[in-house]
Each structure stands twice: as structure tokens, then as C-alpha cells.
């Protein structure tokens, strides 16, 4: 088994706030692996299936849908769906209060302080890493389907400004999904790798990465294939989500004020307006105005034009928040904007013209006759870079052999000293792996325990920094106060994760360390959350592919079976209906066979013929959510459409 594991492919995964992707290397070129629906982006949305389908492969686990079909459920049954879970990764209950006001996260009420928050989905509860694990498992399966071979090792990207707990949570998610996470790579660094691969260049690059929920800025020196990060900065809670929320708040307030309807009481309706807000935002990147035209439950319609100038004024405070981190990163790298040779734009939010304008000003680009790099799709570039890093780790390709990434830790590591101040032991922007050794002693005769509080952050007081862990050095031989000399070694590894070891030097005794991460899962908890061991049984792989292919086929066949009951069915013409019927019959027949690839191909064909039908159903769901009909009589006519899981709806928003 070990042999197979070491021979296998390493994939690169971008686990994003809004969308996730999986990529790999084909020779010297990275490429994104499409899902069954042909789409490169898998929306980071997870929906708990309404009816538990008994599947032997699930090992009794609840079944979920991930991606586009889960996004559809967001409007129909918002209480069973979660998105933007990345915002909750590695965070404690008191840290996420702000998020709870803006996102429909339902946190289980009886979680104790210090415990990992659990999200209520329908009747079940999940930790954020478990939700991320479902997304990762989907990506893993997409890759396995593509290669027709097991995939067990991955590189996963994280925002450069993620702290220790957020990184650990991401690694835990990988393990739960049955992936050995060979490396966590910072997203901006990955983007630089994707750009740097085909150019043997020397220079200083700034990567400006404004994604769905996080903002990063990294400054790198590129020389002889070595990507050496000089400094990084950012905000792990700043991104396109914040812009969506601004537009959403305005629409909801105006609807309330002008029409006397408080949509906030209807989660499904809020999600429908949110969808309209996202569409408006995207439109405003290319058009000079966008319109809201929303039908309300009381029969009114909310009409609103948003000119681009108004939009830009609205979002200015959000965008301005990226300027400070950029200036700090330049200062930390000890350079001026003029010394930046190239700027790379990453993340969907960098499509906004106002963002590009700001970047131009921050780095004095057009003044120097330069333009930022946008050649690679900003939604895909991080995943492509992750694939390059995966290639480096696998040592499989000549083109990646010469490359090496030297990244830094984004936040200073410190220990709480007397009076609650912080003594820094590893400065931010230190190249990782990095280590520091400190010596501790006792304050009282015969003391056998020393408590150490480790924090991460730049503030002077420990209480203003992020608490990482409390260590208890135990088993110190009883001696006079001040006599024991306990050497504690702090090591930040190449993933940016902290490890601690301790030793009492006078007695030569290894002090025991009890690590209490401030927020995080224990090893046993992670172990118990592993999604299904079946995923890792290589021998059963072919069997599993076949079972999965049949499951997918059955899901879509069941949906098509119920299709004529939906009002949307009547909107199709005879030709469309005939095409669906033909594709359905073909799949039903092929499904009996043993050829997983053929079943998938027939499933995909049926999916494509039903695409317009799916869109019609989606529209019906949106409008009924807005008019509040789902609560009443309309519920009945739509029930089938609501519960029909359509595994492969196309991406609705980018």
C-alpha cells in the first residue's frame, strides 16, 4: 500500500471561500481538472441532503451535495446549506460573532468556550473542518474520476495571512477527506509560481490577492528559480463577500423602508436578493450600471438602478482597507513602490475596475508604463500554482526541479511575559521553517509545573494577540526556585504550523508538554471525523468508481423521473423533451453495465440535455422564495422541484 501511495499523483487544491478547484501537472504545464459537469470551479457550498439516501459507500455518514447543486438548495432550503465556511476555519466562538451578523451561519447553541464551534445543518451539526472536508472530498473525487486512479496526496492553498489555528484546521480538513496534505502553500505565493513557471526571470513581484473572503499581499524576489517571499500582509476577513453584503444591506433596507417588507425574516428570500446583488456586482465590472428588479411578497416590485459611480463610492471603504497592508508589506520588505517590477492580480474581486485603479495607484504602475498581470484567469491562478508546488514536491518533472519556494510566517510568534506583555520570539516575515529556543525557570521552591502562553500577532499586549496555545511544562524535578533550566524549542514548519518541544537541562529530563490549542480539534476528534475509510482502500478503487458513477446516474435519473410534475417541464418544447427522454433511456441502459466511464459519459449527456430545464426550475425557485410563496400554496406545486437533487447544474455566477 505504501508503494502505491508514494507513486501516486499529488494534486494542487485551492480551497476558496467562494469556489474551490483542483489542478495537476501535465508535463510542464499545470491545468485545472474539471468536475463531472465540465466546470472548473466547484462552488464552496455544502448542502445536507434532504432525504438520507442509504448508500453502502457512505459508511452511515450523512450524505451531502457539494457545489452548484448545493448552491441551488441555498435558496430552497437555506437551513440545510452552508457557504463561505472558510471564514469560520480555526476560529473560536467569540471571534466569529461579527460573521454571524452577516452570514446565515447557525452555530449550535450549547458549545462551550474553547470548543470548536459547530454549525447546525438541518438536524445535524458539523465543525468547519468537516464542512471543508466535504468540499475537499468532492475535489478529490473529481481528480480520481479524471485520472481513473486514486489520489491520496495534495497541496492545499491557504491565505498567506492565515494564523496557526486556521492552517491547522485546513490540514485537519484534508485528513478528514482522506488526503495526506504534503504542504500548505500561501495563495499569493502559489499565484506567483503559476506566473513564474514559464519565465526564467529575475525581479521583485507583488501579488495582490483579493478573493471572496480574504485579502493577501505578498512581495517576492524571484531569482534563479527561487521564489523568496520578502514580506506578506493581509486581512483574513476582507473580500468580495463584504461587497456583496454592502449591496445586500442596501437592498434589504430600502425594501423595508419603501415597501414595508422585512425580507430578513425569510432566509430564502435574503439568499435570492444576495444572488441578485452578486449578479449586479459582476455586471458592474463591465457595464456602467446594473439594475435590481425584485418582485416582493406583497406584489410590489423593488426597482433600483446602481450606476457604477455609486457602486464605486459604496465599496471605496472596503477597497481602502487593502491599502494599509500593501504599504506595510512594502515597508517590511524595505522597498518603495518603484522597486516593484511586476504586479500580479489574483482573486475574482480583482476584476472590479476600481480595484485595478487602486492597485495602479498603490504601486505607481501606469506612471511607470506598467500594467498588472492578469493573463491567467484570476479564479484559477492559485490552483495552477498549487499544482506547480505539487509537482515540486513529487519531484516528478524537470521543469519544477529547479524551482523552490521560500515562504515566510505572516505573524510574529510571542510568549506572554510578566504583566501581560508579549515577548516576541519569532518575528513576522521570517523565512520558514524558523525556530527559536527559550529558557524558562521556576519562581517558587519545589515548583514542578511552568505554564507558557503562546500568542501570534503584532500587538504589545497578549490579550490583543491571537492566543495559539497554552503549554504546561510538567514533571520538572523539584528544585530551588530559579534553578531548573527548561529549554523550550519553538519550530514553525514549512506549512506555517507551530511545534513545541521542551527539555529540563539540569536533570537532563525531558519535560512533558501538554499542549492545549486555544481553538482546534484534538487528534482523536479529527480521527473520528474522517469521512469514510472506504475512500482510502486502494483495492476497492475501481469498484468505488463504479458505485459512484451509478449513484450519480441514479440521482439524475430520479430527478428526471419527477421532472414532468414540475411547472418548468411545461415550458420546454417537444424537441427538448424528446432529447431528455432519449438521454434518460440511454443512461438507464448503460447503468446496468460495469463501465464506470461510459456511465459517467451518459450521465453527463443527460445533464446537458436537462440544463435549460434546471435553469427554469432555478428561476422558479428564486421568484417563489422572493414572493414568499414557498410558505403557502405554491409550496405544493414546487415541492418536487425543490427536493429534486440536480447533481450537475451549471455555474450560475462566477
Amino acid at each position: 500500500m505504501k508503494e502505491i501511495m508514494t507513486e501516486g499523483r499529488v494534486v494542487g487544491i485551492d480551497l476558496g471561500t467562494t469556489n474551490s478547484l483542483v489542478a495537476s501537472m501535465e508535463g510542464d504545464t499545470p491545468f485545472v481538472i474539471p468536475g463531472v459537469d465540465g466546470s472548473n470551479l466547484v462552488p464552496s457550498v455544502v448542502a445536507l441532503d434532504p432525504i438520507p439516501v442509504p448508500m453502502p459507500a457512505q459508511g452511515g455518514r450523512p450524505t451531502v451535495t457539494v457545489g452548484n447543486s448545493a448552491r441551488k438548495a441555498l435558496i430552497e432550503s437555506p437551513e440545510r446549506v452552508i457557504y463561505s465556511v472558510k471564514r469560520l476555519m480555526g476560529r473560536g466562538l467569540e471571534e466569529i460573532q461579527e460573521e454571524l451578523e452577516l452570514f446565515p451561519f447557525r452555530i449550535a447553541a450549547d458549545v462551550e468556550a474553547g470548543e470548536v464551534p459547530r454549525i447546525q445543518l438541518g438536524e445535524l451539526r458539523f465543525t468547519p473542518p468537516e464542512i471543508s472536508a466535504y468540499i475537499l472530498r468532492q475535489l478529490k473525487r473529481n481528480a480520481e474520476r479524471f485520472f481513473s486512479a486514486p489520489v491520496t496526496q495534495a497541496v492545499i492553498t491557504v491565505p498567506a495571512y492565515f494564523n496557526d489555528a486556521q492552517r491547522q484546521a485546513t490540514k485537519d480538513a484534508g485528513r478528514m477527506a482522506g488526503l495526506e496534505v504534503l504542504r500548505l502553500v500561501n495563495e499569493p505565493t502559489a499565484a506567483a509560481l503559476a506566473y513564474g513557471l514559464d519565465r526564467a526571470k529575475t525581479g521583485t513581484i507583488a501579488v495582490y490577492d483579493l478573493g471572496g473572503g480574504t485579502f493577501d499581499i505578498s512581495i517576492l524576489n524571484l531569482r534563479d528559480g527561487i521564489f523568496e517571499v520578502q514580506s506578506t500582509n493581509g486581512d483574513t476577513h476582507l473580500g468580495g463577500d463584504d461587497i456583496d453584503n454592502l449591496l445586500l444591506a442596501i437592498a434589504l433596507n430600502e425594501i423595508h423602508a419603501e415597501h414595508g417588507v422585512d425580507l430578513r425574516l425569510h432566509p430564502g428570500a435574503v439568499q435570492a436578493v444576495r444572488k441578485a446583488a452578486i449578479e449586479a456586482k459582476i455586471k458592474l465590472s463591465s457595464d456602467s450600471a446594473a439594475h435590481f428588479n425584485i418582485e416582493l411578497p406583497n406584489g410590489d416590485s423593488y426597482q433600483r438602478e446602481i450606476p457604477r459611480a455609486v457602486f464605486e463610492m459604496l465599496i471605496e471603504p472596503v477597497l481602502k482597507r487593502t491599502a494599509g497592508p500593501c504599504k506595510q508589506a512594502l515597508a517590511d520588505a524595505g522597498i518603495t513602490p518603484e522597486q516593484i517590477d511586476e504586479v500580479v492580480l489574483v482573486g475574482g474581486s480583482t476584476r472590479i475596475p476600481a480595484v485595478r485603479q487602486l492597485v495602479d495607484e498603490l504601486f505607481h504602475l501606469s506612471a511607470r508604463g506598467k500594467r498588472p498581470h492578469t493573463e491567467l484567469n484570476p479564479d484559477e491562478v492559485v490552483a495552477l500554482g498549487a499544482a506547480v508546488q505539487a509537482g515540486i514536491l513529487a519531484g516528478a518533472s524537470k521543469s519544477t526541479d529547479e524551482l523552490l519556494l521560500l515562504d515566510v510566517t505572516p505573524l510574529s510568534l510571542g510568549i506572554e511575559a510578566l504583566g501581560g506583555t508579549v515577548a516576541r520570539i519569532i518575528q513576522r516575515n521570517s523565512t520558514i521553517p524558523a525556530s527559536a529556543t527559550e529558557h524558562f525557570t521556576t519562581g517558587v521552591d519545589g515548583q514542578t509545573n511552568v505554564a507558557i502562553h503562546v500568542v501570534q500577532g503584532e500587538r504589545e499586549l497578549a490579550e490583543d494577540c491571537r492566543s495559539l496555545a497554552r503549554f504546561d511544562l510538567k514533571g520538572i524535578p523539584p528544585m530551588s526556585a530559579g534553578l531548573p533550566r527548561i529549554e523550550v524549542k519553538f519550530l514553525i514548519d514549512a506549512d506555517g504550523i507551530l511545534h513545541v518541544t521542551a527539555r529540563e537541562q539540569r536533570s537532563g529530563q525531558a519535560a512533558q508538554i501538554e499542549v492545549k490549542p486555544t481553538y482546534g480539534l484534538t487528534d482523536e476528534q479529527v480521527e473520528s471525523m474522517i469521512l469514510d475509510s472506504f475512500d482510502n482502500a486502494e483495492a476497492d478503487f475501481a469498484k468505488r468508481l463504479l458505485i459512484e458513477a451509478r449513484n450519480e446516474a441514479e440521482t439524475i435519473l430520479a430527478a428526471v423521473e419527477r421532472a414532468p410534475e414540475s411547472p418548468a417541464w411545461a415550458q420546454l418544447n417537444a424537441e427538448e423533451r424528446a432529447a431528455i427522454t432519449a438521454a434518460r433511456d440511454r443512461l438507464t441502459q448503460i447503468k446496468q453495465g460495469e463501465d464506470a466511464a461510459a456511465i459517467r459519459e451518459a450521465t453527463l449527456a443527460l445533464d446537458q440535455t436537462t440544463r435549460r430545464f434546471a435553469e427554469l426550475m432555478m428561476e422558479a425557485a428564486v421568484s417563489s422564495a422572493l414572493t414568499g410563496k414557498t410558505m403557502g400554496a405554491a409550496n405544493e406545486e414546487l415541492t418536487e422541484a425543490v427536493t429534486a437533487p440536480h447533481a450537475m447544474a451549471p455555474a450560475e455566477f462566477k
Partner: protein
Amino acid sequence: MFKLVDSAVPVACWSCSIGHNDSTLFCPHCSKIQPPPGGDYFSVFGLEPRLNLDLPALEHEFHRLSRKLHPDRFARAEENEKEWSLADTALLNDAYRTLKDPLRRTEYLLKLLGAEIGDGLKSKAEKEARTPIYLLEEVFDLNMQLEEMRAARASGEADPVLASALEQAKRKFDLMLQTVDEELRDEWSAWDAGDDAERATSQKTMVALLDRRRYLSNLVRDVTETLGA
């Protein structure tokens, strides 16, 4: 006094069992990675302790060693090699970070030689408590001005006279800093070229200069912060 890497004790390579000098990162015989050697940061780069260093050469060596040692090169290696790659690379990075910066390099060397340098696990307040006698009066005046400035800011008033007095004080302390840096550079050459006795004298001078420098740069930082607030 100065303890160079003890090369007298041979260590057997874990892989090929041939004995080698313990300051090496790779076995000279089978090229396999070795556990972190016990030497100082200079020895990581194969250097004698020196205060004047050729920085481009240091960077070149850092990159060369990174390529060989980095955990990325051992992602699929055996557990022990993975562990040593991590430890060795951490050592390499710590060494490079310390040696590439002249002040850190100087502090490091002085600490190696047994000097007490004013940081460690002390709080910020403790570190700043010592005011050199020759600066007492000026620091007293400066603190008064800083207090006034903060009070003026808090009440929303601008005080151009005070601001310009602070600017002037800042320039003065900046100049003092520059002088300290020049004196430090002279000491580097003196230490590098000196015999044991000359080095001992130089070390004392450098410890004093570093104390002074730390104090001055904190003053400059406070003034800059107050002016920029």
C-alpha cells in the same frame, strides 16, 4: 574563550556509517542529509566568525543550501530524513536571517562570546528602563515635549512650534544614530583583524554601542509615532 566547532569528535553517518565531522549538513561520503550539526550560525555557511561578511556570497550560499535541504525536497522521503530536513532548514533560515543583518549579526556574535545583550524574554518596559547618564537631560526634555504633543493632539489643537521642536530633536537623535553606526562599523573591522586582547576590548565597546543604539532608536521611534499620529 571563543569555542569554535569541535571538529575532533567524529560522528558516524546514520546511512553509510562512515565517521564525519559533526558540523556537516550532508555526509561527505554518501551525501545523505544529517541531523542538525552542533555548530554556530557561521559554521552553517562554512564561515569563521566574522563581522564583515560578503552579503551576495552569503545569499548565494543560502540559496544553494536551501535547494538541497528544504523540506520540499524531502516530501516523500523517510520520516527521519524529513525531520532532519525540517530541523536543518530551520537552522539555515535562522542563521541566514541573523547573519544577513549587520546588527543582528553583531548581537549574535557578542552573545556567543558571553555578552549580555539587552533583550531576551523581558518586557518592552524593562528593556527601555536604562537611560544613559549623558542623555538624561535631553530625554527628560523630549518626554515633556512628547507629552505636550500628545495632549495637544488629543484636544485637536495643532502646535506647529512644538512639532518643529520635535522634528529638530528627531534629526538630532538620527544623527547620533548614524554616528553610533559608524563607530560600530569601525569596531567590526577592529574585531575581525584583532588578536585576543584587541577583540576583548572591541567586544566591550560594541556592547556599549549596541545599548546606546537601542536606546536611541526607541527614542526616534517614539518621536516618529507621535509626529505621525
